[in-house]
């Protein structure tokens, strides 16, 4: 009975449907409308895609813009995560970067010294030219490095791997600590004496009173590197250690480099002296002497840099802060954990926004490339169809 009824229903529906004829031009009109249709909006595209998926039609995947959006979101997310992670408090930065920057500046200035100074002398041009060529030859040999400086200069060998003892590492050590003390005056005196007791010296000190009674002070002391640990131990015993960090910078490579450059310049100096003995004519002599002066200045500069490095290596730096309870450093009245957290969060937010801008800026060329490719593909597809 059901089968028969279903057959009747099918027949009836077909008969009813055949009451109307499909307009002859319907297909043509549909295709024309499709050709003229503008690019579909995102919402319609998504709906079409969703329709296809819901009835099990196999589709090429999610809409392409979803992939692009997800990639951009992932990039921003990763950047934000990285920014937040790298914002975690780490060891206190080494307090001596200024010294190293100074060293770099000294080195840079030395390198920029005038190469020749013979422009004032106009006579005896031939002799001057000869001198310039000789100086250039000498400089060429010295600037090529210590290994190529000439027979008088022994090549600087790099430390052989697996033989750490052949070049003992040169480490600049720095420590920072904060100690809460019961009696500031007594602890301060002990700290000042502590420097001399460990064969060191105080380079900087500063004390202040908080609310007219609580003491707080910071001091910078230099102690022999071999006594750094003992000095730190004694400082910690002055009270309750609140914070401590230490860092070390290996300057072995810089020292080796300074040595090499110094020896190369010294070789050049010797050769210039020889040249000076053979020089004939005022202009030639002046030019050689100018270059000689420049080389000597550079040598002095390099030696000063080396001494500074060696001093940093020989004497470690301790930045100590002593304070009585209630006079904690870097904490202003009312600057509680909530405010600190808020500042941290604000900073993190700014970093995230900045990071997002960087990522978006970086994506612009890629987006332009992708858009161009997509346009070309679309044009080709349309022509084919």
């Amino acid at each position, binding site marked *: 009975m059901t089968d028969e009824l279903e057959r009747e229903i099918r*027949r009836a529906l077909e008969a009813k449907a055949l009451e*109307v004829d499909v307009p002859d031009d*319907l297909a043509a*009109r549909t*295709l024309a409308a499709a050709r003229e*249709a503008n690019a579909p909006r995102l919402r319609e595209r998504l*709906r*079409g895609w969703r329709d296809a998926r*819901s009835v099990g*039609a196999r589709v090429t995947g999610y809409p392409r813009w979803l992939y692009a959006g997800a990639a951009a979101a992932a990039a921003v997310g990763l950047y934000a995560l990285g920014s937040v992670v790298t914002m975690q408090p780490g060891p206190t930065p080494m307090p001596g970067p200024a010294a190293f920057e100074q060293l770099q500046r000294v080195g840079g200035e030395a390198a920029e010294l005038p190469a020749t100074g013979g422009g004032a002398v106009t006579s005896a041009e031939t002799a001057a030219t000869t001198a310039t060529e000789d100086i250039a030859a000498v400089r060429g040999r010295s600037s090529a490095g210590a290994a190529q400086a000439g027979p008088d200069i022994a090549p600087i060998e790099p430390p052989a791997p697996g033989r750490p003892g052949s070049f003992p590492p040169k480490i600049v050590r720095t420590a920072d600590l904060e100690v809460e003390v019961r009696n500031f005056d007594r602890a301060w005196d002990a700290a000042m004496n502590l420097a001399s007791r460990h064969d060191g010296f105080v380079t900087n000190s500063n004390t202040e009173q908080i609310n007219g009674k609580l003491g707080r002070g910071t001091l910078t002391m230099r102690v022999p590197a071999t006594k750094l640990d003992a000095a730190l131990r004694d400082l910690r015993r002055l009270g309750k250690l609140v914070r401590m960090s230490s860092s070390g910078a290996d300057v072995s490579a810089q020292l080796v480099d300074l040595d090499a450059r110094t020896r190369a310049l010294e070789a050049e100096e010797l050769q210039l002296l020889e040249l000076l003995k053979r020089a004939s004519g005022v202009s030639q002599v002046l030019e050689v002497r100018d270059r000689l002066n420049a080389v000597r200045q550079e040598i002095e500069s390099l030696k000063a840099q080396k001494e500074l490095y060696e001093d940093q290596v020989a004497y470690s730096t301790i930045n100590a802060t002593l304070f009585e309870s209630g006079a904690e450093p870097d904490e202003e009245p009312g600057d509680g954990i909530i405010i600190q957290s808020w500042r941290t969060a604000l900073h993190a937010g700014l970093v995230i926004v900045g990071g997002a801008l960087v990522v978006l800026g970086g994506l612009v060329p890629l987006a332009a490339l992708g858009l161009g490719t997509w346009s070309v593909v679309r044009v080709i597809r349309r022509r084919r169809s």
Partner: protein
Amino acid sequence: MASLERWVATYQPVVFRAAYLILRDADAAEDVAQDTFLRAWRAADRVYDETGVRAWLYRIAVNTALNQLRKRKREVAALSRIGTAGGPADPMDERDTASVVAAAIERLPDRLRVTVICRYFLDLSEREIASTLRVRPGTVKSRLHEARRLLAGDESLALAQQG
């Protein structure tokens, strides 16, 4: 565009007639038949397998037709037109059983009528109908059962079958 031409040639007549069955209006059915393929074309570049295209197109067609039905509120007018023009005032006058069944289907509530059209005209499976009408498969099953029960109990149909 090639795939669209193929789809139009293959499925548009059926889509047009299904829309006509739902809307009872040839002009509106034309609109639905066009809109269906325009919507399909917009997502055409993401469909690379023809397996599900038929059901997909029918789903778009049925939904577009249902939207039209709701939006333009033609149901009352269409029913009255059928009632005056071709309605079986006296079933015994009907010589053709198919017409009587068709008229009985017309009298079904829309939710049952559209389900019947999807099942017996478009040949969609119950799962496909459920997806198309956004109902559960069990609901489709019960709707079809109810529609068959109503049609089987329709007096005019019984008389026509006896005749």
